[in-house]
């Protein structure tokens, strides 16, 4: 039974919705206008936006000033490669958690016992570090040993959790403030950190990761991995288990189960995950601003160059903004349907 609304009512709703839609879109629309104006006119908007002449010069200036295509290329490489790399990690993980869930911890220790174990290891680590005077810079082996001493119990704890807890732990790594990790990552990338640098005769200091794809792609992958796993997991869980059972009964091996049965059903989920991940990496700004400056610098960096140049810059800023957001926005418009599915993180059906 379809509902009927009166024509007047529908018109009214249409009007209100269009008005609100336009308000939401307005800043982008306004940027679009300013991008095609001269600098002086951009500053005298909105009084003159219909009367002042239109121009393309800003785009030419922006391109001449900073090589736009280079940034688009960098952004695309980082976004696409990190997404693919992320899927390589996430698909098996999501498969494992969705189809082979563990309902109870594989090691039965009480929470108190775990806490004591972790505390004990931390205390030992700290005691060793303190006894050598907290000087680790020229001690790569000791540093690595301490990190392992500190990290392995945590990893073991995570490893033995039941599936639901593992998932939430993964998501919680995404909550880690990047500010806390910035210094360590910067120093590791610079090969000048606590460990990682001097290994006997080998000096890794010559291999810089800052401002390289080799550094940015894995980093971006790790940033978004929790969300990718989470999304894939929710999709995979929707796939009825009975179908897999039936396939197994028919004698399908694991490979066939994966390729013939699972893959076709999982493709839409993977596609929308991929899409969302590309958008998230495209727009990432904290790490890219801090760790790149040219060779691997993406569009978020490109635009930050227009944050405060000399004198009047609104028209140039608008043109640069438009250039930075246009590719991803168009992609978003055309893949709206998949995206909506992806955005809901499988939590809404």
């Amino acid at each position, binding site marked *: 039974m379809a509902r009927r609304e009166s024509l007047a009512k529908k018109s009214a709703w249409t009007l209100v919705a269009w008005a609100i839609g336009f308000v939401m879109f307005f800043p982008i629309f306004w940027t679009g206008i300013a991008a095609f104006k001269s600098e002086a006119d951009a*500053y005298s908007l909105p009084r003159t936006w219909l009367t002042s002449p239109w121009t393309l010069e800003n785009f030419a200036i922006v391109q001449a000033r900073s090589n736009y295509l280079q940034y688009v290329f960098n952004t695309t490489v980082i976004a696409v490669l990190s997404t693919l790399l992320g899927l390589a990690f996430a698909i098996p993980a999501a498969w494992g958690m969705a189809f082979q869930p563990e309902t109870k911890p594989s090691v039965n220790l009480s929470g108190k016992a775990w806490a004591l174990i972790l505390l004990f290891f931390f205390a030992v680590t700290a005691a060793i570090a303190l006894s050598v005077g907290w000087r680790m810079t020229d001690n790569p082996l000791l540093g690595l040993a301490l990190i392992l001493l500190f990290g392995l119990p945590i990893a073991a704890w995570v490893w033995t959790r039941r599936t639901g807890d593992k998932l939430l732990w993964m998501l919680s790594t995404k909550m880690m403030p990047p500010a806390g990790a910035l210094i360590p990552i910067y120093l590791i990338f*610079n090969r000048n950190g606590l460990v990682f640098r001097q290994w006997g005769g080998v000096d890794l200091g010559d291999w810089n990761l*800052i401002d390289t794809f080799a550094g940015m792609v894995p980093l971006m992958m790790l940033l978004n991995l929790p969300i990718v796993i989470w999304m894939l997991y929710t999709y995979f869980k929707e796939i009825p288990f009975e179908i897999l059972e039936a396939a197994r009964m028919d004698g399908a091996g694991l490979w066939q189960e994966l390729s013939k049965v699972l893959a076709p059903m999982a493709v839409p989920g993977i596609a929308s995950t991929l899409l969302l991940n590309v958008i998230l990496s495209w727009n990432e700004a904290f790490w890219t*601003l801090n760790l790149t400056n040219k060779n691997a610098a993406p569009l978020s960096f490109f635009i930050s*160059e227009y944050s*405060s*140049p*000399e*004198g009047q*810059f609104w028209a140039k800023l608008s043109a640069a903004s438009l250039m930075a957001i246009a590719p991803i926005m168009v992609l978003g418009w055309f893949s709206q349907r998949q995206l909506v599915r992806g955005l809901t993180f499988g939590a809404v059906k």
Partner: protein
Amino acid sequence: MKSLKRALLGACALALAAGAARAASTTLTIATVNNGDMVRMQKLTDDFTKANPDIKLNWVTLEENDLRQKVTKDIATKGGQYDVLTIGTYETPIWGKKGWLVPLTGVDDPKDLLPAIAGGLTVDGKLYASPFYGESSYVMYRKDLMAKAGLKMPDAPTWDFIAQAAAKMTDRKAGINGICLRGKAGWGENMAFLTAMSNSFGARWFNMKWKPQFDQPEWKATLNFYLKMMKDSGPPGASGNGFSENLALFQTGKCGMWIDATVAGSFVTDPKASKVADKVGFALAPDKGLGKRGNWLWAWSLAIPAGTKHVAEAQKFVGWATSKHYLDLVAAKDGWANVPPGTRASLYANPNYAKVPFAKMTLDSINAADPTHPTVKRVPYVGVQFVAIPEFQGIGTKVGELFSAALAGQMSADDALKQAQAYTTAEMTKAGYIK
């Protein structure tokens, strides 16, 4: 096993050969700031690469704050990303003393450099950075508005005159603000202006025992004067305005006066960018009759980090970019008004350059600043609008945020000063200056 070894050796040999082939042409990575003068240099590098076909230039152009942060991190961790750095008079003495910079040998006629500028870039008699352009600060004002207000700007005004003129020129209905000053937080933004201003009020950052002086009446007078003047005659949103924002305001005719960097002279008098190009006058930064003026001294300069493997090529490039020849090159291409100012005595002796409207006032302003004796009372530090110690960046920015909050009306002047005093004391104690 043997074949594997041979294959490895072969690969190494190939890699070496490739390395040797590449060594024939060196790539210099140059970190620079995205100011107009620097961007212009990138367009003129053909002149350099033609004379040095074996050197390729790779530019990393960054916004001022980004540049500072990235270059500092790189040089402090010996990252070695850059072969040539663009730094200022703040970093040069600190890094030169630490041995992080290579003394320059290829500078064209070093005796020609203005002594006030070269002095700030020299440590123990060695030049560690070659000035690309030098600047001080001065008053830019609108002659037409000044006449309308019935006043005449003296060549060397006082702060009281500036405040009075600003109030008279202000016409909020017409969108005219008597005075535009920096308010955006940062040691190189509002604190550059306020520190220079405080010098003329007799204030100082530290006494001879490195005790912060924000609890002294001179700082209180400085901050209150600044806040009152901005409240009476400043533009809206002043707490977010730095150099660029004020330049935009002045160019569109919203400011009666603007006290800022002397390089702005060529921008505000450029008829292509400025609506008020033909109405701008210049005067020395104001004083309070105490013997010091409120102008600063800065030079964006090129330096070579100690970690680079291409010292010889870098020396060549720095020599070229800061040479007299380069000044002639710009003059021939873009006219004398666009020549990087404030570095060479010979430029100011050039009759062609003397015709540029802001030339004389720039030179006078630079000569009026003395980085080794910046304040009325004695201080243990060097630097006019900064204190040349590594900790200053952090302290200056934090104090700048407090003063910016006071300008935004989020905090009283007394609170801002009190917190600035407490914070600076804590930081100086932590760093070991205060025992």
